[in-house]
């Protein structure tokens, strides 16, 4: 259908074709500088030993072996996975509950929506410092700090991202809930369904697409988290391993890669780039999974 239309209009767009330097030129040039070249160079360098980009020597899979045997990297992976799943559950339950309440036609819905979405516009670094002040204000009464206990760091970061992202997911859930046809709800009401029955048997199956989107969004957000992690705890507290290496207990994957690149004392750029490739495969894999999930839903409908 669309294809036919395109051919029908091709006479005028033959003339467009020669204008590519104007229409495509700037974006293609910037895209090569800002993405294509760094991406492929990044993949190449993950198989090299290097300090600067110009003096790289090929070392095969050595960087990947080093990355996988790095205790701090493995720790960061499991820590990140646990964090992402925990934040997914908390954010989605809270966001759905708020969205459900705000679509009940209660007084002040618009005001509440405005308030809940607001933290989403504040940047990760600023958020980190706001919450580190609040947590330290509370914890200093018990003579402790968010930097000394990894449990505080974990739950502190969970509270921070929940505060930031609940409003965002709420917007998507509200759109989904408003699209549930009114006559289905009426039918359920006439059939004598209780509030909970309507929620679990009628409403939730109808907003499944929104739930899928929000779950994957919060999962990938959790995996990619960097600014908030850096500003809140920066990986503190540190623990020295028996073999002399340091494991930063609240360090997530993105921060671990950053630290391997820029703050590690030994030359480890190659290992860092290999970690970055592993990280990319992980995040891209999650996105592919999401795509296949949403496609499946479309087929069913």
């Amino acid at each position, binding site marked *: 259908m669309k294809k036919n239309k395109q051919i029908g209009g091709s006479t005028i767009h033959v003339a467009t074709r020669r204008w590519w330097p104007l229409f495509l030129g700037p974006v293609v040039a910037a895209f090569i*500088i800002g993405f294509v070249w760094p*991406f492929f160079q990044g993949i190449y360098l993950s198989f090299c030993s290097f300090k600067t980009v110009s003096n790289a020597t090929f070392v095969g899979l050595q960087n990947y072996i080093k990355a996988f045997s790095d205790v701090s990297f493995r720790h960061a992976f499991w820590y990140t996975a646990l964090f992402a799943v925990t934040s997914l559950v908390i954010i989605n339950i809270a966001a759905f509950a708020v969205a459900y309440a705000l679509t009940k036609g209660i007084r002040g819905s618009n005001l509440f929506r405005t308030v809940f979405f607001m933290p989403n*516009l504040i940047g990760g670094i600023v958020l980190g410092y706001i919450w580190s002040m*609040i947590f330290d*204000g509370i914890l200093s009464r018990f003579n402790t700090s968010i930097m000394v206990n990894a449990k505080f760091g974990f739950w502190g970061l969970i509270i921070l991202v929940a505060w930031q992202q609940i409003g965002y997911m709420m*917007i*998507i859930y509200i759109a989904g809930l408003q699209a549930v046809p009114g006559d289905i709800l009426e039918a359920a009401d006439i059939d004598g369904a209780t509030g909970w029955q309507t929620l679990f048997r009628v409403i939730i199956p109808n907003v499944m697409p929104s739930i899928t989107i929000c779950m994957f969004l919060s999962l990938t957000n959790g995996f990619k988290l960097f600014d908030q992690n850096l500003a809140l705890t920066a990986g503190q507290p540190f623990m020295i391993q028996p073999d002399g290496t340091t494991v930063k207990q609240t360090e997530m994957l993105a921060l671990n890669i950053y630290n391997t690149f820029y703050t590690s004392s030994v030359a480890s750029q190659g290992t860092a780039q290999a970690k970055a490739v592993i990280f990319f495969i992980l995040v891209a894999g999650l996105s592919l999974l999401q795509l296949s999930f949403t496609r499946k839903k479309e087929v069913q409908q």
Partner: protein
Amino acid sequence: MNGTLSKQRRGKTILSVVMGVVSFIYVMPVFTVLLNSFKLNTFVKTNTFALPTGEMWAGFSNFAKGMTFGNYPFVKSVLYSVVITILSTALILIGTTMAAWYITRVDSKFCRALYYLCVFSMVVPFQMVMFTLSKTADSLRLNTPFTIPIVYLGFGAGLAIFMFVGFVKSIPLEIEEAAAMDGCGPVRIFFNVVLPMLQPTMISVAILEIMWVWNDYLLPALVLDINEYRTIPIHIQYLKGSYGTVDLGATMALIFMSILPVIVFYLTCQKYIIEGVAAGAVKG
């Protein structure tokens, strides 16, 4: 019947009150920042949640101090943030609308390959390219606030092109054919006919790009020379590094000054922001 109706109404009132309380708790963090920006340094940690009264009161001294805090003028970092955000957003809007229209209408093999590469770039996390990208930007002298928008165009083109292509596909070709019949060339067709129709999507994309660039920390921190050029997030992050102990009162004053414009922007363009964010979320 009457009983259930009044019961429903009471339920709604209770829900409204509960939501009111939750909203109040929700704005507390921002309110706490404001409170502490008026406190003397030593009281921020010990009396975080108290009102800044009596001996705690610092007046506006924190705000005055915040202006030159961290060996870097705050105004300068605001200026660089504004310049980078405006230039990057403008460049992305102009560049990607043109590219998206060309990709959809010419529809050659190269165009399709480019489109799929753009979609692919959306799932690549920044850590994957950060080292090589910052080195490339350095060697091409893109490391100033006036040239870094090119880097933003390159790394941010994917989402924008994806959104614009989706919209251009829905524009009927007849409009452009009519313009061509009237003797318009491709350049005039694009700027006089297509571009005005793209406006709603342009607003959504602009909101997403503004929020991204304004709050972005890592990309400018790696690309720019941070002794010379600092954006607001870089400035705030480096407060900690520049002193042994940080003046928390002045930090809070700085943080309040940096989130105030964001909140004003949000309250004035709320409708567009929420729509734009929702449009960007459903990209999968």
